[in-house]
């Protein structure tokens, strides 16, 4: 909302600096985004035209001598309206003016000394457009005769406009008077109300017009006045200036007055040409199905029965509270004005404007559910101004159909105890009363509080807390003390899902991975790239996605993470080791979708940054597996990895993660992405290893353990020394490390079995591989002798031979 300070000053004296005013309005809830100063242009002063002659070489140009208070200047001028004796705005060389010939608004141009058709022009006489205070460029701006020659132009034309970022609860501040009320309360200066009384010299209004409301739920009040014998014409300068200062285009005196009153007190009005309203009868009714109306902007609108229409007995003449109809518009020939000031129901008004994509200044106000009291004030104010400006006679009385009478909340009870209860501080009764009165509230006090009347301009006031806020914002939030919370602390409630996700996130970071947060939405086609299992639940589709790239909610973290890998692979030469812990959205058709927590990690690129001693081999399956082992071990889970199949991953390079201790529950998958899948991501890496953990399944396994994983019971460690021996075996290529370890560990004396070397190729027969295993032997009771160990070792070798055909390597 633009509020020119000169306009504001009509209703309240402003005796503080503008910056201070802006600050205090902001603190009180009307945030002043900026103060725009117009008309203050350096090197432009009031000048007096002392001589006008014809340019010797151009018919349409004249040579003008200007007295600018500091001497005289000769200026070449093309304006038709320049004349001797005028006070004008004279720009001397160096002034920065609006470029009147540029199509780009706001473009400026520095005035230079120039020759025009052979004559040097020493400055310029300015038009409204060049001064940046309006659009007119037909001729020069002629100033008031009283303007003193040599005065800087800002002192004559300058305006400061407060740009206020209004909150939706304050439609009163969509009128300058509403802002003035806040200023009055802030500064303590009295408010000067605009005049609303007028002389009604015409015939009784009931003999001239009538109103019927068919749908009182949508039209809460309808007031009407009739002014006969008006003269339609241009508005006086003061009125045009007021509208221009807030960016509104003057049209004619009647329309300008209705606009002015709307921006003054916040009530939208509409003027009809009385003679174009059949039977001079207004009917407020719902539009009929298929009914059409051409609105003031010359567009034909198709209406529906949810839209409220202003009609005469024949047809629609206006879209209630949105826009008038073209058929009843005020024109130069209008002699009698039928003036409407009504209260339309907000939700319906807003819906109509939205459906027709027709947002108007009227709707901006009506949608905020104005109080019906404002309608009458607006009607009287506008009628008075019409009589003053356009002449004519007002009919006696007004028509006032008020179906909402008695239905609006009239007052709010404020107990004095409400103030400390909400704010934590007490105020003197005097402070409470003077603050509310300064804002225009009438109140009656008693022993325990006040009955406060709700002013007709404040639809946002309905409960005592609203009044508490009024007091607090005017007294100033700064003047309310600060205390710390006391009282009972709430009971702690377990949050196992969140705790697990945080724990897993921390473990992944400890495992050297970088956390990413990817968009929760994707496209069906994008997600299809990772070939999700067909059994996965349905997708959540979005009705109005922000773009087609985010049309559905994700059901997997794999796609997002692979996109992130791919993007980084083009710019990042070091290791890519990233993860995300987040939600996927699964629709089972009943109620809200399941938001399941998943953890997914990916490895690509070199295993390490370039280093003199560390491998820069490409990351692979075992990097991803190592990370998942690290995470699960820290959670107290012992998983097994079995060859598995998953459509995202390459066959033969994938493992399913199973937990034998939890009924063989499958909790995740790890593997290298298949070539087919990876080729769809435009990644500049040949291999991506990825793992995924279903945190919901993990949670079911670890329930009861602490967030730090330590759920198990302490076991006394064995103090008897252990010994180790290495076995070098030849086994079939397809035999797995897991099988060898499992066979070895069947003997309880074997504390651990670790594969520490693998070799295939020269010296090893075709179809076979060499495997080196370290076995650690430890008895809980006594130190084992070499002989005992040898015996056990032989048993193990026999078993390995029997089951796997393993031989000792020669």
């Amino acid at each position, binding site marked *: 909302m633009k509020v020119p300070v000169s306009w504001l000053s009509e209703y309240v004296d402003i005796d503080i600096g503008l910056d201070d005013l802006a600050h205090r309005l902001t603190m009180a809830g009307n945030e002043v985004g900026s103060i725009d100063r117009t008309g203050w242009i350096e090197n432009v002063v009031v000048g007096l035209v002392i001589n006008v002659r014809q340019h010797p070489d151009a018919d349409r140009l004249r040579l003008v001598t200007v007295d600018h208070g500091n001497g005289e200047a000769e200026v070449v001028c093309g304006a038709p309206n320049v004349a001797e004796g005028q006070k004008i705005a004279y720009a001397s060389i160096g002034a920065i003016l609006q470029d009147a010939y540029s199509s780009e608004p706001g473009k400026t141009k520095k005035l230079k000394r120039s020759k025009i058709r052979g004559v040097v022009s020493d400055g310029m006489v300015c038009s409204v457009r060049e001064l940046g205070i309006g659009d007119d460029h037909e001729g020069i701006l002629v100033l008031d005769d009283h303007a003193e020659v040599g005065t800087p132009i800002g002192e004559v034309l300058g305006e400061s406009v407060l740009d206020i970022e209004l909150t939706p609860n304050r439609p009163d501040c969509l009128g300058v008077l509403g802002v003035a009320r806040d200023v009055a309360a802030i500064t303590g200066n009295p408010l000067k109300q605009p005049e609303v009384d007028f002389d009604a010299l015409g015939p009784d209004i009931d003999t001239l017009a009538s109103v019927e409301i068919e749908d009182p739920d949508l039209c809460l009040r309808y007031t009407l006045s009739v002014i006969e014998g008006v003269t339609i014409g241009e508005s006086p300068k003061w009125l045009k200036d007021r509208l221009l200062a807030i960016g509104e285009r003057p049209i004619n005196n009647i329309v300008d007055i209705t606009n002015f009153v709307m921006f003054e007190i916040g009530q939208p009005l509409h003027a009809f040409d009385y003679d174009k309203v059949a039977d001079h009868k207004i009917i407020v009714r719902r539009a009929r199905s298929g009914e059409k109306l051409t609105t003031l902007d010359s567009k034909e609108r198709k209406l529906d029965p949810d839209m409220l229409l202003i009609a005469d007995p024949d047809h629609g003449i206006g879209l209630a509270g949105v826009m008038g109809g073209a058929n009843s518009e005020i024109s130069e020939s209008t002699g009698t004005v039928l003036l409407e000031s009504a209260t339309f129901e907000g939700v319906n008004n807003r819906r109509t404007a939205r459906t027709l994509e027709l947002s108007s200044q009227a709707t901006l106000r009506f949608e905020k559910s104005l109080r019906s009291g404002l309608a009458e004030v607006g009607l009287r104010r506008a009628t008075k101004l019409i009589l003053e400006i356009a002449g004519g006679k007002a009919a006696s009385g007004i028509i006032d159909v008020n179906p909402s009478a008695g239905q609006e909340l009239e007052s709010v009870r404020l107990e004095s105890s409400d103030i400390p209860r909400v704010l934590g501080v007490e105020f003197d009764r005097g402070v409470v009363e003077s603050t509310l009165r300064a804002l225009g509230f009438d109140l009656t006090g008693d022993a325990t509080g006040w009955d406060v009347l709700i002013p007709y301009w404040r639809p946002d006031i309905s409960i005592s807390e609203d009044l508490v*806020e009024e007091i607090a914002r005017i007294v100033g939030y700064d003047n309310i003390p600060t205390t710390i919370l006391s009282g009972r602390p*709430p009971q702690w409630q377990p949050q196992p899902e969140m705790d697990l996700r945080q724990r897993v996130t921390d473990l992944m970071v400890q495992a050297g991975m970088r956390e990413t947060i990817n968009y929760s939405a994707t496209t069906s086609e994008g997600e299809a790239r990772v070939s999700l299992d067909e059994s996965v639940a349905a997708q959540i589709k979005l009705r109005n996605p922000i773009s087609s790239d985010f049309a559905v909610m994700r059901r997997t973290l794999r796609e997002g993470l692979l996109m992130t890998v791919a993007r980084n692979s083009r710019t990042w030469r070091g290791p890519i080791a990233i993860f995300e812990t987040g939600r996927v959205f699964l629709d089972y058709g009943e109620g*809200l979708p399941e938001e399941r927590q998943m953890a997914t990690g990916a490895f690509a690129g070199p295993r390490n940054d370039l280093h003199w001693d560390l491998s820069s081999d490409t990351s692979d399956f075992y990097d991803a597996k190592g990370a998942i082992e690290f995470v699960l071990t820290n959670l107290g889970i012992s998983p097994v990895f079995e060859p598995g199949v998953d459509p995202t991953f390459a066959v033969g390079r994938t493992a399913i993660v199973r937990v034998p201790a939890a009924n063989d529950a499958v909790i995740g998958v790890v593997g290298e992405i298949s070539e087919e899948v990876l080729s769809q991501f435009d990644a500049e890496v040949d291999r991506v290893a990825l793992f995924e953990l279903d945190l919901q399944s993990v949670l079911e396994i670890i329930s009861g353990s602490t967030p730090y994983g330590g759920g198990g019971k302490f076991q006394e460690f064995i103090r008897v020394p252990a010994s180790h021996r290495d076995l070098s075996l030849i086994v079939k290529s397809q035999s797995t490390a897991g099988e060898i370890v499992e066979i070895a560990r069947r003997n309880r004396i074997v504390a651990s079995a670790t594969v520490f070397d693998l070799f295939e190729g020269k010296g090893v027969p075709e179809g076979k591989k060499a495997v080196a295993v370290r076995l650690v032997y430890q008895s809980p009771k006594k130190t084992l002798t070499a002989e005992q160990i040898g015996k056990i070792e032989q048993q193990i070798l026999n078993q390995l031979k029997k089951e796997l055909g393993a031989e000792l390597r020669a």
Partner: protein
Amino acid sequence: MSEAQPSEAVDQLREAAVSALNSADSSEKLESWRVDFLGRKGRLTALLRGLGSLEIEERKIVGAAANLLRADLDSLYEEREIQAKSSDLPVGSLDVTLPGRKPALGGLHPSTQMIREITQAFNEMGFQTVEGPEVELEKYNFDMLNIPAGHPARDQWDTIWVDSEKHDDVLLRTHTSPMQARVMESNDPPIRVVVPGKCYRYESTDSTHEWHFNQVEGLAVDEGITFADLKGTLYEFARRIFGQSRKVRFRCDFFPFVEPGVDMSIDWNGRWIEILGAGMVHPRVLENSGYDSNKYTGFAFGMGPERISMLRNEITDIRHFFSNDLRFLTQF
């Protein structure tokens, strides 16, 4: 040197010798310095040889200066030789300048870091962290929060709706505030919670706007909670996140689910920057959740961790947060 005056030549040689000695950091370099300056064919000897061509008086003066220089250089050399011997490394010493084998460097996303910092500050004031659904019912996101359908206040939250044949009241939550209603609905007072999580808005994106972002909500409800408590709690929070001496401002603002409403800003290089919206829980919100608004009061607040992170870390584009460029992530 030949053009310099003989006495100046001695000074120049002193300067050159001392500076070269200082940079002789090994036994080999020290030895070559010795040969260069003090050796039989060294520069000092050469200087002394040149004395023959001088007048006798001058020869005496310069000769004395040159001898003094030799004595000084001898003693400096000896000192340096002892030093060098004691610091010489044994054969097979490590090249300590080679980079170490550093463990892989993981890290939390900057949003997570910020969320944890914020929630921890409130956790220590007795607020427990809880989470809620991102796909939410209109009822919790709007209606129960005193934002009825058709009300212009809804314009503050442009909404992305879920497309479903069965339901037209499912949306992506536009703020974490629905958890106010959910927490109150299923718990009795006292309540002190903070709720971090993702939110979504139907809003075109640019350097300061994302359709997908995080928020941290807070709610405290009990008997006797006041606006003064709200100020005290949020002051304490601001001091923790922005520093003890940070100037903080509370001004009136409007959110439909609070009354009075608050905007808390901090002073940032002389400008007030809004950090969070807050207020006393609106009595209608309390009543909607089944609380007696005559008995209970409370305050609520909400803030954007990405916005705070942008301010503190001077991040110029919010879209960095979800593009996950490692050149961005590894800076935090």
